């Protein structure tokens, strides 16, 4: 029987709560057929459930453990992730706790040799990056999950076997009260880097593993440094290696350093070794203050992805689908983009309004994104932890040059997780895409716009096809409402947003009116009167027209749903 430890995990700043196992109906002889079962209650699994629930799709979430994440793990969330989290309503609590930042510093021989500044804009509700421990993020998402009647959390439920046929996936689940069988139309594997579902289905990942190993240690200490990322190259106490420092809420600092060649994780995590190295790092940055360890772990840099994220009726997402180096905050931030891409497609397929091709476009778009990330992350990893003599020489030469030559700055590879674009997606319709002078092109996520104080475009987007309509005539608006009614009758979710410089006194009830008297949004989107953007439920643009053609809009939606 699966008996996870029921003692709350130890932490010097986070109060863990143990969630009880509750006996599912299947153990009392009830045979239920679920539409979606999600394995893994990490951020990606729970976000998938919330996103599906917004489309009215119920799900069961199985989690082998009975508490949120052990240790801080993913601590940096990008603006794009915040937009994804906003869609399911969990950003308010994140903003109360998380630390926003936009700058990174690279130090070498006591000098700041490169300073990265992530672009910020008043048009975004969110700053470029936020630091927050994963436990908090999971807690906030979980709170939202608990409020949903469509999501059933099953704690202390460990998947022991996975089988599938043409119509269903069958799971054997072990619990504190014994095993039971569970059947579902679809299974979403969000069970992390060591995914059991992935090995049970014999799925092999492709890519490379780097030899370097790294310690992550979270300490509580009073430090005066601003919330900026700090990278120390070739420090005297750890020659040739790299040390990273990051501020987290609750006065916690993440210290991340590479292990000397040949050292085992056990040796590296020994109390004596941790104390000696953390003290050496603090001494190097001129700090002599008491500190206390919260959590530590060892990781290795790997760049791996499954070649296909759908295997029959099982769909992989997050770290279960790919393993990416943490340099560049590419783990959870990539997973959040995955599950946002997946949920609406799976939901519309389950509802019978879209073909299987739509679900497969999740795989093609996100495998492509993972390959781009692997390429970018590989560059960061090769700089942080050079894998060969040649790479080490080039890295050392770059560090040496950086003391005097600015041109080597970009070689520090500060690139971080970004919103991925799908310019070649089969879901796109060319229409007038190429002739727009500005604005997000096909495949790109919509760009947020500040409409007025504390009022942004993304606040008005639904988990639906969002149609941005610029200064339509009353007749055109009427035509679009007819289209909306027809599509809604087919259970296709449509949100009409009328961006207007002449706000109507009495707005149409089924249309969200966005007032743009200054024309700021019109100009950012390269739009004239009658222009239209069609964005998918995950905010990515699928088509845009300089002037409205209702039949063409309908056709572009049909193309996405594979009904053309």
């Amino acid at each position, binding site marked *: 029987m699966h008996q996870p430890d029921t003692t709350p995990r130890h932490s010097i700043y986070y109060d863990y709560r143990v969630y009880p196992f509750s006996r599912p109906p299947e153990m009392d002889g009830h045979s239920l057929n679920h539409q979606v079962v999600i394995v893994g209650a990490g951020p990606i699994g729970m976000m998938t459930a919330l996103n599906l629930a917004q489309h009215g799709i119920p799900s069961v979430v199985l989690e082998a453990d009975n508490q949120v994440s052990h240790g801080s793990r993913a601590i940096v969330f990008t603006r794009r992730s915040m937009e994804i989290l906003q869609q399911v309503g969990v950003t308010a609590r994140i903003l109360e706790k998380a630390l926003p930042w936009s700058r990174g510093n690279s130090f070498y021989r006591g000098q700041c040799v490169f300073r990265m500044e992530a672009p910020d804009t008043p048009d975004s509700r969110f700053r470029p990056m936020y630091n927050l421990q994963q436990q908090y993020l999971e807690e906030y998402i979980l709170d939202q999950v608990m409020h949903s009647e469509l999501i059933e959390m099953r704690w202390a439920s460990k998947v022991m076997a996975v089988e599938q046929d043409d119509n269903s996936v069958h799971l054997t689940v072990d619990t504190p009260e014994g095993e039971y069988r569970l059947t579902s139309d679809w299974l979403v594997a969000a069970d992390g880097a060591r995914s059991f579902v992935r090995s049970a289905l014999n799925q092999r990942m492709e890519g490379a593993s780097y030899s370097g190993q790294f310690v992550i240690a979270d300490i509580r200490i009073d430090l005066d440094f601003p919330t900026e990322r700090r990278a120390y190259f070739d420090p005297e106490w750890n020659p040739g290696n790299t040390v990273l420092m990051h501020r987290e809420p609750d006065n916690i600092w993440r210290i991340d350093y590479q292990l000397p060649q040949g050292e085992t994780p056990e040796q590296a995590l020994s109390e004596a070794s941790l104390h000696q190295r953390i003290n050496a790092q603090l001494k190097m940055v001129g700090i002599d203050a008491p500190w206390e360890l919260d959590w530590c772990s060892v990781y290795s840099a790997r760049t791996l992805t499954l070649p296909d994220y759908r295997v029959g009726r099982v769909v992989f997402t997050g770290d279960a689908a790919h393993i990416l180096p943490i340099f560049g905050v590419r783990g959870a931030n990539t997973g959040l983009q995955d599950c946002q891409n997946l949920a609406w497609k799976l939901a519309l397929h389950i509802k019978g309004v879209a073909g299987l091709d739509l679900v497969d476009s999740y795989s093609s778009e996100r495998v492509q994104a993972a390959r781009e990330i692997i390429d970018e992350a590989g560059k960061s990893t090769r700089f942080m932890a050079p894998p060969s003599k040649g790479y080490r*020489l*080039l890295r*050392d*030469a*770059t560090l*040496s*040059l950086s003391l005097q*030559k600015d*041109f*080597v700055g970009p070689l520090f590879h500060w690139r971080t997780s970004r919103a991925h674009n799908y310019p070649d997606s089969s879901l796109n319709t060319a229409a007038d895409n190429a002739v727009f002078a500005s604005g997000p092109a096909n495949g790109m996520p919509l760009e947020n716009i500040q409409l007025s104080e504390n009022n942004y475009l993304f606040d008005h987007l639904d988990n639906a096809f969002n149609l941005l309509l610029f200064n339509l005539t009353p007749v055109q608006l009427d035509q679009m409402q007819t289209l909306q009614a027809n599509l809604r009758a087919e259970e296709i979710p449509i949100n009409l947003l009328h961006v207007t410089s002449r706000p109507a006194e009495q707005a149409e009830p089924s249309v969200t009116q966005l007032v743009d008297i200054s024309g700021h949004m019109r100009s950012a989107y390269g739009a004239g009167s009658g222009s239209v953007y069609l964005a998918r439920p995950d905010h990515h643009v699928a088509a845009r027209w300089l002037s409205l053609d209702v039949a063409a809009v309908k056709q572009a939606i049909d193309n996405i749903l594979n009904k053309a």
Partner: protein
Amino acid sequence: MNSNLRPQELESVYDALAESLDQAGEQDRLYLVKVALCLANLTGDADAVLNSFRECLEDL
């Protein structure tokens, strides 16, 4: 445009590089890589640089 060095200039480069390498001592490899990166940046011609990298791998 022929941007090759004149023989006299090439000779000066030859001598200066030799002496700089001696001066770099045990760090001569690191020194050469710094020089290569600086010169690559100065040319502003990535194709020509990559071509030189390929050519110089021959006959080692």
